[in-house]
């Protein structure tokens, strides 16, 4: 049998080029990334890590790298999500300095290209990539732009940072692969909010990658509202290492994109560290959204908490994959994950795979998963109080999804995420 060309390699090969002027380590990283991608090609259902999400459609779409932004047609930018934030604006995956407001944080937030000489950037970007992280490898090969965010030891970033990613697709299907390097120093603090928006029409692929380190004692709040356009495809992978006593607090709200996958791979490297991965998603039509997480407990007395809640309507499909691994030395691990899905239509589907892989004995780990329609009792209760059926349904759905945000520590961030959810539900101002 002749060796078959791995899926999609031909489609992406033309975009891969040697770039002059980059440090040698980066050229190496890009070559490795592309080699790795070429080996396996785009993942399909046959790859266990992608069992429920096939990227076959991406191979057919013939995305071209987005040109520099000059000719992108933009409407008005939306206002800030969180009052008082600094903001970095990306148009089609490239930083638009003129639209950004980094006042007060310029010492912390740099264009990635300007920080390539820094050791910490090299250290973060150069970390080993897992076999299943194919799209991440492709991101390394192809990224054109990004940010380098660094908060030195003991400092707090003076303003929260919003990163606004605007998709402005044109006639042809475009793609971009932005990359973030984020380093939160010892006992430092920062809040980063990502917002991804796009128009209803126009095909594009946004393939994000982020390398994050949360050093000993540090706290990073990292929230994301994914409101991509209806024909957009959104893939995002964040790899996070967490030091002793540190907290990585992550929340994702997924409402947009035809196809999306939000993947977070975290390793709890220091004892007494904690990771919170939470998310809410609401899907309709033919949307497909995949939330995948991996948590490696690699040190004693580490803690992980995950709650993902979804409401799935139309012909949409939700996917949850949660994988907790407890290393032999990670005694006294406390890990919990929960995935709950509401199926709101006859053609909706949810697939979940909450895996526990445990090699230490003194642990407390658990997971739960539920799927089903709205709870009739709740609905009845609300209606008995005089709330019309449709309104009651919305409220129940809202409550169900909002529960996933409870684990998010920062109250202000939680409320802007919920506000975004309420907007989508037509329940603005409910809280």
């Amino acid at each position: 049998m002749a060796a078959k060309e791995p899926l999609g390699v031909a489609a992406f090969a033309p975009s891969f080029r040697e770039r002059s002027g980059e440090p040698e380590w980066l050229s190496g990283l890009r070559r490795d990334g592309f080699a790795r991608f070429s080996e396996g090609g785009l993942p399909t259902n046959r790859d266990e890590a992608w069992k429920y999400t096939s990227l076959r459609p991406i191979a057919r779409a013939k995305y071209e790298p987005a040109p520099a932004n000059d000719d992108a047609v933009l409407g008005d930018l939306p206002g800030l999500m969180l009052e008082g934030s600094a903001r970095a604006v990306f148009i089609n995956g490239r930083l638009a300095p003129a639209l950004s407001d980094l006042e007060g944080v310029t010492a912390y937030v740099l264009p990635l290209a300007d920080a390539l000489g820094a050791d910490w950037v090299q250290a973060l970007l150069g970390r080993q990539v897992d076999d299943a992280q194919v799209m991440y490898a492709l991101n390394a090969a192809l990224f054109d732009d990004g940010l380098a965010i660094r908060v030195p030891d003991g400092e707090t970033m003076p303003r929260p940072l919003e990163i606004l990613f605007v998709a402005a697709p044109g006639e042809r299907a475009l793609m971009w692969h932005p990359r973030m390097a984020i380093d939160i120093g010892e006992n430092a603090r920062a809040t980063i909010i990502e917002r991804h928006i796009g128009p209803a029409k126009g095909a594009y692929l946004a393939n994000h990658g982020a390398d994050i380190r949360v050093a000993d004692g540090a706290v990073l709040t990292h929230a994301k509202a994914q409101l991509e356009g209806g024909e957009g495809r959104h893939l995002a992978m964040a790899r996070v290492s967490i030091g002793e006593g540190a907290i990585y607090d992550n929340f994702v709200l997924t409402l947009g994109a035809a196809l999306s996958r939000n993947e977070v791979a975290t390793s709890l490297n220091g004892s007494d560290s904690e990771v919170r991965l939470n998310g809410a998603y609401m899907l309709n039509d033919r949307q497909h959204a995949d939330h995948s997480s991996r948590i490696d407990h690699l040190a004693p007395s580490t803690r992980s908490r995950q709650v993902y809640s979804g409401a799935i309507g139309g012909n949409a499909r939700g996917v949850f994959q949660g994988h907790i691994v407890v290393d032999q030395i990670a005694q006294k691990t406390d890990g919990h994950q929960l995935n709950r899905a509401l199926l709101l239509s006859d053609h909706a589907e949810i697939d979940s795979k909450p895996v526990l892989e445990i090699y230490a004995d003194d642990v407390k780990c658990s997971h739960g998963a539920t799927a089903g329609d709205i709870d009739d009792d709740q609905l009845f209760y609300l209606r008995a109080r005089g709330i019309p059926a449709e309104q009651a349904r919305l409220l129940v759905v809202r409550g169900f999804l909002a529960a996933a945000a409870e684990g998010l520590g920062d109250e202000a961030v939680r409320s802007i995420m919920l506000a975004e959810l309420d907007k989508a539900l037509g329940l603005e101002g409910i809280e």
Partner: protein
Amino acid sequence: MSATAETVADVERLNEKYKYGFVTDIEAENAPKGLSEDTVRFISAKKNEPEWLLEWRLEAYRRWLEMKEPDWGKLGYPPIDYQDAYYYSAPKSNENAPESLDDVDPELLRTYEKLGIPLREQEMLAGVKNIAVDVVFDSVSVATTFKKKLAEAGVIFSSISEAIQEHPELVRKYMGAVVPRDDNYFAALNSAVFTDGSFVYIPKGVKCPMELSTYFRINAENTGQFERTLIIAEEGSYVSYLEGCTAPMRDENQLHAAVVELVTHADAEIKYSTVQNWYPGDENGVGGIYNFVTKRALCAGDRSKVSWTQVETGSAITWKYPSCILQGDDSQGEFYSVAIANNMQQADTGTKMIHLGKRTRSRIISKGISAGNAQNSYRGLVKMLPTAEKARNYTQCDSLLIGDQCGAHTFPYIESQNRSARVEHEATTSKISEDQLFYCRQRGIGEEEAVALVVNGFCREVLQQLPMEFAVEAQKLVSISLEGSVG
């Protein structure tokens, strides 16, 4: 004496951990070593099978040649050399199948006595519910008891070889109907070379008057056991069936690849219990049975029910997922499992519940216990198809770890395509509770016994599902399997 203390004493008396580890010295007739179309023909000819079955086997063999051994289980073992085994071994004395127990080789009868399996009908204890037993020794069935009494009720209980001769139309209709011959690598292998197994047919409206049981024993060296069991419950019938398995202690690994197919028609119920105690190998992982089993039930009729209960304590490797296809409306599937892996054992077991019919219900209770250097995984699928209106599933998977060198893993797959269906899954993993052990010990209970007590409590919900007679046995087995895991 408490059950657990008794066990400990028993074991000490036998002065060995695995009391079924003896070898019976009996003359056997083997097929030539290795696997080929000729082996398949040899087996089929030995069994005097009809042409269609030989063809069926050969097709399975050809499919098997094209298939890949599955590698997705969380199991590690050296490659199996399928040419280095015998695929047929029959006690010589059994060449002319015995008409009654009196014709069975006394050496064989003694073996089963030693194993605690009552074969002589008159030896059944008064007061204990009668149990009919089919006994499979290496590749062939050597005896089936209570045939006459069962026949009066219209129940057919025989070896599958006999059923192929006596009831070819039933075998032909149902064999491969639930587990297609090319379903998976090991099922294909079994379909090609299966040698014996049990056949049960319960006619319409009949409640089988006694428990049915098959006892599997691997004796010969280098021999694989490939049995096939087929149980058909016609409309409104009921049967409770139990299988037990043991094997001698040998330094090399032996292969066991079975296929079990169950079919329930409307309002019928099958309760299928397994106490699997194949030789697990020694503390260093030398020897032991490789147990690759495909078990599946088709709940074809409305309101039919299948309940799988398994206590898995043996085997070096266990790869086994008793499943239910819930096709009939209001049909029910249950899976109750205790899997214990100690020393170097590896178990990857679980279930699949495929909901097709309306208001189908399934319940999964899995208790995994890992000790020593063992790895124990639960792997399960719950699938609600679009037709599964108002279907329900509840799953509870708990894992217990004893010692810090073992692993406990949970791989559930939950897929729902029906909004009115409800799926609930919960899993927990924790260490055996120090507080509970201390509490027991403060009351004077020794450490090993305290562990056995706490573990038996942990498994109780599952053990309760076993027929009474076996629940006690199983409880002892739980204690024995954990010997040496503390201290």
